[in-house]
């Protein structure tokens, strides 16, 4: 499961309740997580974690769990 910091980022960027962030949530599975929201999510993650994601990772970031794994890669 993802940590609270990332959960808050997802909720803020997608404009949804934190309770709605689950393992089943995937890119495009709800109207709020469209391509525009995805780029807002990326901006928020980059800003909060002070990282710059590769384009491949942005495309690959299809769920909160996947996002957590990708972020960990940049924090090594």
């Amino acid at each position, binding site marked *: 499961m993802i940590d609270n910091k990332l959960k808050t980022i997802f909720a803020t960027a997608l404009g949804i309740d934190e309770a709605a962030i689950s393992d089943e949530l995937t890119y495009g599975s709800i109207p709020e997580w469209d391509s525009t929201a995805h780029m807002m999510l990326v*901006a928020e993650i*980059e800003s909060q974690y002070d990282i*710059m994601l590769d*384009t491949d990772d942005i495309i690959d970031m299809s769920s909160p769990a996947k996002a957590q794994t990708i972020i960990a890669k940049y924090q090594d």
Partner: protein
Amino acid sequence: MEKLLSKKKVLITGAGSGIGAATARLFAAHGAELYLNARDELSLAEVVAQIQHDFPESNCEVIAFDVSDPDAVKAGFQTLFKKAKSLDVLVNNAGILDDALIGMVSAKQVERTFASNSFSVLYCSQYASRLMQRSGGGSIINLSSIIGRVGNQGQAVYGGSKAAVIGITLSLAKELAAAQIRVNAVAPGFIETPMTEQLPAEKYQQRLDSIAMGHIGKATDVANSILFLASDMSAYVTGQVLGVDGGMLI
């Protein structure tokens, strides 16, 4: 003199000579924090030395990478991110000129020209726009060409690659406007640069004869228009292609 780019973080690609070098010098005079790009550090040595001599208070760093290689662009922007954290202005200037009649165009030439002149604009803008969002907006200036607007014989590949720059500019202007990122292009005409010096004498004269103002442009003429688009003087200008060609007719 009012400094139009005071403390603005700027990346200029292809800054080693011609329009890129003239833009770097002009931007240094206007107080920009400069990050200069070329394929290798050596080709930037002269420009950097000149800037450091003429503007000792300026901040001028080199980030060498090949703009036509997506992996190199990725690594270059990671370096920029570590050094600058954000970006205000990107000048997509790097490019090559390689003319040939259509019957003699090789696939390798097409790939190389589009990679250097067009794909590079996409790769660099992709990363730059994300860095710009960190500072609440920015300005991207893409170097097209009069050939990309009106075409010319023997320049199907170059003209195509520069027309693509206009399409990219217009689309990005629409996509990035909400993030307060302005995207414009400059379309120079016949400009005195190392690239145009390669032309045979007869072609050089032909081009000169087609300019209504009667003389070749200088790299500083183009740099001045780039300065306008980079600065807040053009704060409400986006999605435009500015011709800098002295009334050239092809």
